[in-house]
């Protein structure tokens, strides 16, 4: 019962806001937040029941929905993995809703915004609460739809509309992959429910499992912005900052991670699939990090960092470190949301300025944002005692333990690059003197108290510090024991002995990270660097390597290989096939009718004799028939 309510409350909220939006006026945001908070409360209430199941079987909270065909039923379930995601979605989602009340104040369509946000939460819950692939697929599609709505929320901006369309189309590619996976699995196992499929997984031929995993991963790659389906994520920053925080940092883009983790039994049976996922994750991690170095928009830096961090998560679940990858998701949700919302505070304070070249000196101008952003940045870099440290360390070491040394090297190197570009952003934006020109806009002044926006950011910053502590203690930590039912230690993924111990690896990575921070400080943070920052930054802008600025030309490649042929095909059909073939067929039919008419018209000459002859011809025809065919009774 509570599970149904948990799932449906956000939908009710969305419907209420859609219907009564104009009447609610300023209250819309509070109503929306209340619904999400209620869902969160229900999740917490179900925490105990859902986290007790026996390992290897399913005993958590379940809520059946409908039995479609006998033996094929849809329903909801709450087990440790989905419970974790639900907590993040409703909890962090609720905080972001609260923040958005302040951020979106004064916008003309506040009610529509919150309706979409609630709808998104509902869709995401559908995705994670389903106990079968079909429900997952439904949620998958709805989340893409919600993302489209929210990215293109300011629909009067052509760039926002284009970005929304791009995101949706790339997500559709992923949807198709996921659909094929469901088909393959259904054909192979006769069911689309998770537990049935996972029970049968060991008995399936490896090629089938590999095929299913590849198709599932196409979906994950699209949704989680992995190479090569990543190009939509930076453009998705056109949406409002709360949207970027909720959808494109904490929840929707992690759906791919969720799916791979959920299908752990499948992945445990196919080493090739694991290799693929891990490789893509590693490539994405370093590719995103490199692109983050050359960005000037504060939100785009964070977008590329999201792409890179999700690369870490994917790498983690790919090599078989499910709990580690999921831990990275958990900590990332906190510090990335913190970073985005703090960036939103900055943007608001500077009157919608997003270019870090025009910032500077914010340490004194927006101290709250300064401290929260610092916490978030340190967490993402993996500074010890902060959450990011625990999760990153776990993932990186696991790549070595599971036998992928080159991934380890990539991951460690990326950690350093991450530190570099994150602190680059931080130093440019917050240090030095204020570089905003004389024409800078003024800060937003709302009627709401400051805590509406600051409380969520503060809480998230606390999470960015503390969320990693649950994993202290290795395999016996609360974290691993919580997730043990879903990821039993005795799965198929081998663990090797490694030359480097855990502690040594930690120190190694930390050293790389400190080198990265040091480089960033030397280039952007010293007094000398910040003195003539404008000039230095302008010089840097001119000297950035083109391959990075153009995003490895992936957008251009997609444009040439996919977009232009599609447009050409569309043009061909629109300009040639439609007017000439389709319309032509109709026109020709009409022409035939006309010509026939002209011909037949000559028979109607008005002459009595001609008509009489026609009569006699008819009679002759009848007589001929009867003469030759005979009169039959």
């Amino acid at each position, binding site marked *: 019962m509570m599970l149904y309510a948990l799932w449906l409350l956000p939908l009710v909220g969305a419907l209420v806001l859609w219907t009564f939006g104009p009447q609610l006026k300023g209250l819309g945001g509070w109503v929306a937040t209340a619904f999400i908070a209620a869902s969160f409360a229900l999740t917490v209430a179900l925490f105990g029941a859902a986290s007790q199941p026996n390992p290897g079987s399913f005993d958590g909270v379940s809520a059946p929905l409908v039995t479609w065909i006998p033996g094929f039923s849809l329903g909801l379930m709450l087990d440790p993995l989905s419970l974790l995601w639900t907590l993040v979605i409703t909890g962090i989602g609720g905080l972001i809703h609260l923040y958005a009340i302040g951020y979106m104040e004064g916008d003309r369509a506040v009610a529509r915004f919150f309706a979409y946000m609630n709808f998104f939460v509902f869709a995401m819950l559908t995705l994670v609460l389903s106990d079968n692939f079909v429900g997952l697929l439904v949620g998958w599609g709805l989340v893409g739809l919600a993302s489209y709505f929210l990215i293109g929320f300011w629909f009067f901006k052509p760039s926002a509309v284009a970005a929304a369309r791009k995101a949706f189309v790339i997500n559709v590619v992923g949807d198709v992959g996921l659909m094929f996976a469901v088909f393959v699995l259904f054909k192979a196992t006769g069911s689309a429910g998770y537990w049935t499929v996972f029970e049968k997984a060991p008995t399936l031929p490896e090629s089938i499992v590999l095929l299913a995993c590849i198709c599932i991963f196409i979906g994950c790659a699209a949704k989680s912005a992995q190479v090569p389906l990543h190009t939509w994520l930076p453009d998705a920053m056109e949406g409002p900052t709360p949207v970027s925080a909720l959808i494109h940092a904490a929840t929707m883009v992690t759906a791919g991670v969720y799916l791979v983790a959920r299908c752990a039994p499948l992945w445990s049976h196919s080493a090739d699939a694991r290799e693929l996922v891990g490789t893509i994750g590693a490539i994405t991690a370093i590719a995103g990090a490199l692109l983050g170095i050359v960005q000037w928009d504060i939100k785009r830096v964070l977008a590329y960092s999201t792409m890179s961090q999700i690369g870490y998560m994917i790498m983690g679940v790919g090599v078989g470190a499910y709990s580690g990858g999921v831990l990275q998701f958990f900590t990332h949700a906190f510090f990335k949301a913190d970073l985005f919302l703090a960036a939103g505070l900055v943007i608001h304070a500077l009157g919608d300025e997003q270019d870090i070249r025009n910032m500077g000196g914010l340490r004194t101008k927006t101290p709250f944002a300064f401290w929260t952003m610092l916490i978030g940045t340190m967490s993402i870099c993996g500074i010890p005692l902060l959450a990011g440290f625990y999760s990153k360390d776990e993932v990186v070491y696991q790549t070595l333990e599971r036998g992928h040394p080159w991934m380890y090297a990539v991951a460690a190197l990326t950690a350093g690059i991450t530190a570099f570009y994150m602190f680059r952003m931080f130093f440019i934006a917050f240090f030095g003197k204020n570089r905003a020109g004389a024409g800078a806009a003024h800060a937003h002044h709302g009627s709401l108290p400051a805590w509406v926006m600051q409380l969520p950011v503060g809480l998230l910053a606390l999470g960015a510090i503390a969320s990693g502590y649950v994993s202290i203690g290795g395999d016996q930590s609360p974290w691993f024991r919580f997730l043990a039912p879903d990821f039993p230690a005795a799965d198929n993924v081998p663990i090797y002995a490694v030359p480097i111990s855990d502690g040594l690896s930690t120190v190694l990575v930390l050293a790389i990270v400190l080198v990265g921070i040091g480089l960033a400080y030397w280039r952007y943070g010293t007094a000398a660097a910040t003195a003539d920052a404008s000039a230095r930054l302008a010089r840097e802008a001119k000297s950035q390597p083109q391959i990075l600025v153009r995003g490895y030309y992936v957008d251009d490649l997609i444009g040439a290989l996919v977009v232009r042929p599609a447009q050409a095909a569309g043009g061909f059909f629109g300009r040639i096939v439609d007017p000439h073939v389709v319309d032509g067929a109709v026109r020709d039919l009409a022409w035939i009718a*006309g010509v026939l*008419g*002209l011909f037949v*018209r000559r028979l109607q*000459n008005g*002459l009595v*004799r*001609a008509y009489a*002859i026609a009569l*006699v*011809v008819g*009679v*002759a025809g009848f*007589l*001929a028939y*009867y*003469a030759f065919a*005979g*009169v039959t009774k």
Partner: protein
Amino acid sequence: MIAFWLLGIWLVLSAIFTVTARKPVYSVIGLLANFVALAMLYLTLNAEFLAVVQIVIYSGAILVLFLFVIALLSSGTAAFGIGPDKMPRAIGPALVLVVATLGLLVFGLSRAPMAISPGTSTSTTGPVGTAGVFGSVSDFGRALFTTHLLPFEVTAFILMVAVIGVILLAGDAAPQPTLGKHAPQRRRSDRAREPILK
């Protein structure tokens, strides 16, 4: 036998004369000859009453009606005016068609099995003048007023309708003539307003 053949030839020749005569009055005369031959053929078929009916009604009434109309339409003794032939090359094919259809009919009839039950006979034959014999007036009258009463009444109705129709058509309030100098003239612009398929 001989009577049949003679009458047959007379019938055909008079029919051809009717159809091919130049002046309508000649056609009427030919038709009259045809009807007389036909009446005699009826006599050979024991249909005395019908022979008389044929003469009285057909030759006596209908042909006279034709003569009246010829008189009405003609302007004195001059031949009827005739316009240009609008189907000049139709006569050959039309005759061929007629002959072909006749051939088909004969051919079909010769092949068709005449296995139709004739129905009960209603009276017996006998020498002319005997009461109630087949084809006599009393036989005909009995059939007309008992077995076939309904058709008889219907004929009365038909005739009434015909009379009313003729009065309406050609009586006092006659409709507009469509040809000739009293007919409304069609102008060239009328034709231009006709919608024509492009």
